[in-house]
């Protein structure tokens, strides 16, 4: 099997995720798109891990899964908080960062 199979799959998923982050308005959807990006990275890591016969890739894939879980937890909590305060999680209505 060509390693490019996996790497290209990862690339496609990554770019779809990037599109999602940019295009989506709903905060939950943005978080989902971020999950896509993280998974694509994991696929790459594991592909290289297998290519080189090295366990490091597996290790980092596991770490990324753990970090992603933490990220989703905190992210959704923040979304919840924002929703409670504003009755909306449309990201384009949140412009506190506007200067």
């Amino acid at each position, binding site marked *: 099997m060509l390693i490019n199979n996996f790497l290209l799959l990862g690339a496609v998923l990554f770019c779809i995720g990037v599109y999602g982050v*940019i*295009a989506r308005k709903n905060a939950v959807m943005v978080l989902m798109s971020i999950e896509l990006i993280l998974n694509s990275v994991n696929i790459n890591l594991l592909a290289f891990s297998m290519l080189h016969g090295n366990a490091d890739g597996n290790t980092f894939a596991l770490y990324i899964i753990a970090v992603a879980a933490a990220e989703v937890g905190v992210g959704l909590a923040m979304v919840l908080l924002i929703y409670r305060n504003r009755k909306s999680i449309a990201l*384009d209505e*949140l412009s506190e*960062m506007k200067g």
Partner: protein
Amino acid sequence: MLAHVNDSAGWFLEHAWLIPVVPVIGFVVIILFGKRMPMKGSEVGIASMVGALVLSIGTAYQWIQRVDAAHGGHDEGSAIARGIAGFGRSLSAAASGEESTYVAPVIKSWTWWQSGGLEFGLGQHIDGLAVMMLILVAFISVLVQIFSLEYVRGDRRYTHFFAALTLFSGGMLTMVLAENMVQLILGWELMGLCSFMLIGHWWEDKANSRAALKAFFTVRVGDVGLLVGTAIVFFGANAFAVDNFGSNGFSIQAINAWAMSGEASHDVLLWGSVALFIACIGKSGQFPLHTWLPDAMAGPTPVSSLLHSSTMVVAGVFLVARVYPVFWEGLSIPGSSVNFIVLIGGITTLIAAFLAFVQNDIKKVLAYSTVSQLGLMMMGLGAGAWIAAVFHIFTHAFFKCCLFLCAGSVAHSGSHHSFDMKKDMGGLRKAMPVTFACWMIATAALTGFPFLAGFWSKDEIIATVGKNGYDVFFYLGFVSAFLTAAYMTRATYLTFFGTPRGAAAGEHHGDEHGEEHEQADDEAHVDALVHAGAHATAGHDAHDAHGHALAHDAHGHDAHDAHDAHDAHGHDDHHGAHHGPHESGKLLLVPICILAFLSIVAGFLQAPAFGESFEKLKLWVEPTTAPIATDDLLVGGFGQSVAVAPRAAAEGEKVCGYVAPSPGQACIFPAVTHPPFSWAKAGVATIIVFAAYAISFALCSLVYGTRRNKLQGLTGRNKLLGAGHRFLVNKYYLDDLYEKVVVRAVAYPISQAAYWINQRVLDGTVDAVGKGGRRTGEWIYRYVDQGAIDGLAVNGSGKAASGTGGALRPLQSGKVNQYGALLFGAAALGALVLVIVNI
């Protein structure tokens, strides 16, 4: 001639690296324990600076010994005899062989961290330049801290103020004795961070925090140049350094030798020097990034005086002087009549001088004066006047620091914390005789009054620039001297002559203070209210109710007597006791007087008019200009002390900077020219200065005097003059250009993100320090700040440069998605560029 020095360089020279360590330890102690100390940590700050000063003096003493020893048979007596025998250097031409005596710098380096087979060192590179700067920085810092004792007394963040001030000096000292570029960047950024904290010391006022941000970001724009330049130079010099010195391309010694070796590609040197100079433009307030410097006046006066005399802004000039061979070769300084540095320096010195005429804030006049003088230094460096420019750093530090402290003293005791010359000053010479005298001395020194400090350094810059064929800039130097004398006369007139106005006339600023009310006073006021509320006694309640205006009344005054001197009411007591202007206390005056004295005598370190024996600075500071055997230069590996036996170059050997050194030899410094002192040129300069005094004084007394006449309000009546005036008042509209066009359109989202990171980094740094790890703090700073901010900034500018700016312009909306789009788009394009370049 051959001269040998014993291998042991002396304790102070060997341990010069301790100098920045002392203030940094002081900083940690102040942060951790300062608030519980009897003097709120200020004693630690001053003690650490005194410690650094003592070490610096020891270092300087041993360095001078080393130089004298290397110069062997050249004893003092004969030098003086020659000096007496005739004015002018022409007689000593026979002795010019001595210039090639090599006094080895004391270089040490320890591995700081390793990455990818690359060692990043921390160490010291002690040569004449470093020694001069060390002693200067430590000395000015001590005086400024003593001044601050009284000046910021009772401030809410008194302890933090001293902590930041101490770390600031530590940063500068780190940079000054940096052995390699990485260490230099460390000190450089440390200063940037501290300047941010100090300028924004009274951040409750929005204008101040804006000024701090502006200073930080403007300097950071230039800092990109520093990183890029360091990288370019590293890749250029690394192979050479590894082969010949066993160090790497960060080592300053190796960079200098590489630049002069003739092996370096001119393109690499050109781009490296341009990038490095961009960093200096940001840091040293050169055109077009000078706009942050006057705004930095929002900080407390001692900060301004420290920033503008010997530390922050001099860092850029120092960097150019430090790796001078790179600029010398890269920009072809010898034999050209215009180059990047000299052009920027010339423009800066001129436009800043014009701006100084329209300022009403005394500190801003001084700020523009600093910008102008820095431009002059840069001009000198660009034109090959190395020793003159370095000497001007030295003298300028004394009189500019003195002027700032005088301004602080005036504001503290004369004009009720106002810096507005037109509204609140005038006629103060009678009320504040000592401040006035010192101000006059420092002004005379700055403007080039004969035989004072500025006279020698400025004239030497102008003379060398002229001699090296930079004719336009030679005349520009005279114009700048004229303008300097004129605007300083105006400032002096407005402050000390004429009739007292506003606060200087003893008026109360109760409610009409408004926006120009100085922040310290607000602080005092707020503290007073808080304090009063806490005590809740009848007297305090009365105070509370009546507010600030009553603080001056006997009634409010009584209520204050209960408080100790450390309290914010110190100010009010003080003013309550004497209405109107009066002389400042001893703590303020002593530093001022010392500096004024030095403004008189510092010039004689390099007064070529009086012969060789008055050219000590050149002897001590200027590195050898002859090729040296590479073996002698060899830097022993990391972690080893290197003491190289100096060896003189043989007669008639090739001169560095013009001819590449022969194999086995290396140059570390180009053969800069030293024009003989010319009484004619000095005379012309003096006449120009006196003319400027006279014209400016006459105009001032007409325009600002009490008698009505035609000149008053001329800018209001004459359209052309009015437009010119407006143009100047608006600072050439550069700020508008930056803020309304550049920042809004391109950089705003980026700077917002950077600001956010910055806030977090600051917090992170403080936390880390609190937990006892300065190293950790530096780590976070280096990686998060450098990585994140620069990453963002670089990506952002890459994106802007690649022309998608038009499509992305509507996106500065504060919306997360669009920032994401910018980020990914920039990353994609950056990757694309890299891929294309690589293929």
